[in-house]
């Protein structure tokens, strides 16, 4: 088993290196390396999955990486049911998106670079999932962030793209700050970072310590998975190419936070409080992001906020202790959200780069495959009963809330579901089923995408349709096939399942959402200038995503920059110094330089040193 496990990350890494080093030669044929590499990785993941299904697990070291005194952190990998499921989802969806990219990015001057980054990301992501201890997890946690940064800023000629990349990186650093501290604290407290040893010995942690560590780790998850209050980078990340949004910012990387919390559930359970925080942050984000999604004019931003919201559902699930439900939703979400993004990409592709919903409409007859598959994806996102996997996974989460008698959480999640249904159908109506609102010039060129792009759409649509029926139907005891598969990792909660009451509620919220969308966008003609207009303060609030960006700019970014400039001027008089010298530079030669040197400023420096000496000596004496 060990050899085949290594092949999973090795294939994309090899692909990345080949396209990086020989990019000049591979050029527009780069996908001939990149796509098969991921395909091979997927096939290997399947074989590994099959062996895990037979009950095998595997833990093994690669090499002794960081040694510091008595501390040793070998680069361990760990394969169990959870990582097998994640690997399958990551490589499977990854493969389809690589395939799609071959069509979508066709003719881009950075074709080879794009596939090199994408392969590198897949390598990092599979390593993140395979990691057998927190240190390796941390390393690849950073690595996927770096790839995400590279890919968001891929079209660097757009200033907004490079800014978005930078923002994503820096907001993630804030989260990683907590994550890094959490990992270090864990090491101090337990003396090990290996998953198995850590989870076996969490009982030795005092609950307050466990809470602190868990919350620090969760801070990292908030950054990576775009949860409140660190969610602001994800909508901006839509500046990247659409397949990137589908792969990294919907299906895989952003779910790393959910994976990490689920993986460390023993630690979070030891704390209890931390689990509660996770649940509430998830619920708050789910509702908050759904409200913002209601009104966005940009098709990709709607999907971005919906991703933030759905990630909130996953966190709510793991926070409620329904880990299997959270991971199940993670997987189904990977399918239907990747589908929606790729569909959106197909629409953008067909409309020559237009992303504004106000200028779309009436695309259904021209882009049949895209319309049908995207509608399936939308039904999955909205969780319309029975049709798709999205329903089954969301039902699991809601039933966990119901089963735990968490009625407030349940109500909020249902509210979120109603909002989700509304904005999903709004998007579908505005794009496909209303009268065309684009210019005649654009309208003439609207066309369906090539097969290399539609095949992945169909594949994902099929996955969205069947997954729920195959593994998502609860048995008499209230457990699903999926949950039973994960039983070695997460204890199965048998017992009452939501049943009829939940079904009625689901019908109700979906019905309300669809009805609202129909009444607003389907009954009468839609005027382009009427959509997404901030008519009321509430509209403006939602359109600006509750002003989080502005708040951060005012409270953090500007003061910090002002502080820096102030310190530079107060502490570093060299700034002024430099200006003065700049004037003199042209005329003064070396021989005469001594008299014109700013010796006065040396006085300042020396005075500071003297003051420092006084403080230091005084401090030592005072002790």
């Amino acid at each position, binding site marked *: 088993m060990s050899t085949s496990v290594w092949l999973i990350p090795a294939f994309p890494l090899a692909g990345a290196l080949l396209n990086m080093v020989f990019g000049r030669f591979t050029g527009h044929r780069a996908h001939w390396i990149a796509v098969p590499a991921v395909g091979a990785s997927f096939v290997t993941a399947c074989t590994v999955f099959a062996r895990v299904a037979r009950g095998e697990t595997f833990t093994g070291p690669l090499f002794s990486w960081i040694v510091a005194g008595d501390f040793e952190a070998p680069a361990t990998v760990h394969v169990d049911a959870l990582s097998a499921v994640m690997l399958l989802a990551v490589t499977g969806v990854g493969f389809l998106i690589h395939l799609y990219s071959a069509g979508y990015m066709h003719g881009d001057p950075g074709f080879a670079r794009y596939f090199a980054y994408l392969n590198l990301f897949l390598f990092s992501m599979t390593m993140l999932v395979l990691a057998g201890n927190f240190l390796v997890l941390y390393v690849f946690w950073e690595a996927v962030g770096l790839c995400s940064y590279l890919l968001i800023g891929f079209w660097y000629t757009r200033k907004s793209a490079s800014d978005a990349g930078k923002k994503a990186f820096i907001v993630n650093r804030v989260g990683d700050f907590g994550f890094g501290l959490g990992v270090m604290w864990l090491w101090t407290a337990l003396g090990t970072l290996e998953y198995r040893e850590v989870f076996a010995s969490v009982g030795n942690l005092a609950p307050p310590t466990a809470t602190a560590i868990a919350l620090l780790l969760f801070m990292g998850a908030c950054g990576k998975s775009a949860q409140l209050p660190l969610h602001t980078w994800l909508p901006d990340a839509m500046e990247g190419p659409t397949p990137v949004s589908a792969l990294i910012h919907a299906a895989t990387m952003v779910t790393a936070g959910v994976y990490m919390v689920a993986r460390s559930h023993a630690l979070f359970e030891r704390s209890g409080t931390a689990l509660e925080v996770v649940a509430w942050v998830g619920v708050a984000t789910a509702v908050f992001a759904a409200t913002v999604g209601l009104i966005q004019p940009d098709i990709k931003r709607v999907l971005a906020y919906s991703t933030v919201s759905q990630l909130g559902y996953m966190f709510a699930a793991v926070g409620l202790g329904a880990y299997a439900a959270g991971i199940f939703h993670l997987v189904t979400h990977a399918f239907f959200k990747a589908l929606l993004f790729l569909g959106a990409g197909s629409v953008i592709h067909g409309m020559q780069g237009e992303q504004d919903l106000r200028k779309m409409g009436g695309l259904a007859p021209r882009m049949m495959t895209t319309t049908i598959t995207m509608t399936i994806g939308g039904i999955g996102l909205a969780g319309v009963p029975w049709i798709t996997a999205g329903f089954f996974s969301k039902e699991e989460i809601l039933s966990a809330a119901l089963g735990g008698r968490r009625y407030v959480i349940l109500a909020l999640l249902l509210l979120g579901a109603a909002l989700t249904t509304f904005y999903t159908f709004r998007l579908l109506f505005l794009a496909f089923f209303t009268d065309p609102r684009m210019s005649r010039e654009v309208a003439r060129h609207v066309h369906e995408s090539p097969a290399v792009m539609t095949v992945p759409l169909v594949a994902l649509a099929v996955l969205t349709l069947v997954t729920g029926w195959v593994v998502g139907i609860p048995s008499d005891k209230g457990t699903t096939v999926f949950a039973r598969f994960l039983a070695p990792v997460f204890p199965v909660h048998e017992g009452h399942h939501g049943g009829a009451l939940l079904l009625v509620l689901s019908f109700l919220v979906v019905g309300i959402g669809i009805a609202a969308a129909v009444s607003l966008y389907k009954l009468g003609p839609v005027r382009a200038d009427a959509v997404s207009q901030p008519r009321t303060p509430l509209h403006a609030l939602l359109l600006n995503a509750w002003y989080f960006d502005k708040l951060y700019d005012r409270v953090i970014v500007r003061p910090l920059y002002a502080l820096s400039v102030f310190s530079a001027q107060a502490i570093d008089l060299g700034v002024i110094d430099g200006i003065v010298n700049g004037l003199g530079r042209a005329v003064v030669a070396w021989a005469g330089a001594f008299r014109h040197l700013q010796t006065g400023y040396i006085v300042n420096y020396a005075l500071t040193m003297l003051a420092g000496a006084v403080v230091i*000596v005084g401090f030592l004496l005072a002790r």
Partner: protein
Amino acid sequence: MTPIPAPPVLLSALTPVLVILAAGALVLLLDLVPPRDTKQHLGGLALGGFVASLLASVWFWDADLRAFRDMIALDNFALFFNLVIGYAGALVVLLSMDYVRRTGAETGEYYALVLFAGSGMMLLGSATDLIVVFLSLELMSLSLYVLAGLFKTRLDSGEASMKYFLLGAFASSFLLYGIALVYGATGSTNFDKVAAALAGKAPDGLVVVGLGLMLVGFGFKLSSVPFHMWAPDVYQGAPTTVTAFIATGSKAAAFAAVIRLLFSALRSMQPDWTVLLWGVAALTMTVGNVVAIAQSNLKRMLAYSSVAHVGYMLVGLVAGGASGAGAVLFYLLAYTFTTAGTFGVISLCGRTSGDESVDVRDYAGLARRHPLLAFVLSLFLLSLIGIPPLAGFVGKFYLFGAAVRGGYLWLVVIGVLNSAIAAYYYLRVIVYMYMREPEEAIPAGLVPSFAGGLALAISIVGIVLLGVMPAPFANLAVAAVAPLLK
């Protein structure tokens, strides 16, 4: 008149230093004979000196020699620093063979002074007597003062030299005063004898003040806050290769002296200096990083960044013990490769006229013009941020890990927060290189010579190797501090 008895002389304990000094003398002699139009062979000789010294240091590994009445020691600690300084010197010489020649300032004296400075640095790692510490420090500093003013036609170079010299002399006076007080209180300048005199007693007031004043002197060389203000001016004005040497070699040497002094001679005062360094470390990290944000001149930015990195390393001293001091040594090695490489790229981006591209805007679109150079600089900057799996990450991991285990959690919080802030200004350079259009025509002369390319390649291999396989080097660092903790 009684004959003077010949003192025991164990020259082998000085081998790495003597090799470099010999190379320096040879450079001066060969400077007088043809060929006169090129000095590249002298650069080669200087390089040979550093390489030979490196080899000698490897040869002597695990030696434990003491010589000249215990004034110097050639133990693993000294040898480790010989390695760091040897690498720094070799990289600087390689880069100089490209940069200094291109700027038309190449002379035999330049290489000789680099060698003299290097010998002073190595002696600082070996010194076990305050007098030798002072003399080596002056040997190093004097050479660097002159080197900083190498570009005689450029005002900022002369200004850098002058400021560095005046403030350095000011700082040296503090150091000397501190040495005098310690001598007065303990009756010796020898580390072991000082330690013996202090052992088991309440700290003497004179020694306390002496410690404070010596830390002022060393603080200047380390550029720790509030003794850092010379750094931006000097880094900016000095020739870039000299800046690289100041940032790597002189910093490592000053750390060597401080660590040996604090951990052996002033061991009994650990509670005092730990608390003091706690504050200095926190202040140094924060000021360095916050002020760096506002800089648009790359060399000034890197000056503040180096201040910040000194702050991180002081965290290791606060943590103490084999793991803390070992982490500092490892970090110095990692930092040497990273910083030498960063300044190396900057030195290569200079225009032929000697006017340098040091504004961040000069790097706009570099990735388009010179993808390889941009990629290499990005790697160095990412290592400075501390992104795994590069050397900077592992170094920070060791430092903060040691501090966490020492119980200095708040200091680590400050440190980690600071390294998050730091990402901003390093990343800005990468953004400019990859994501901005160049504002003016492409400056010529961007193709590194063989020497320059070799230096960058060595640095890259260094940071990747230290990042991917840090364990053997970390063990080396821990072994190096073992003699101090006996």
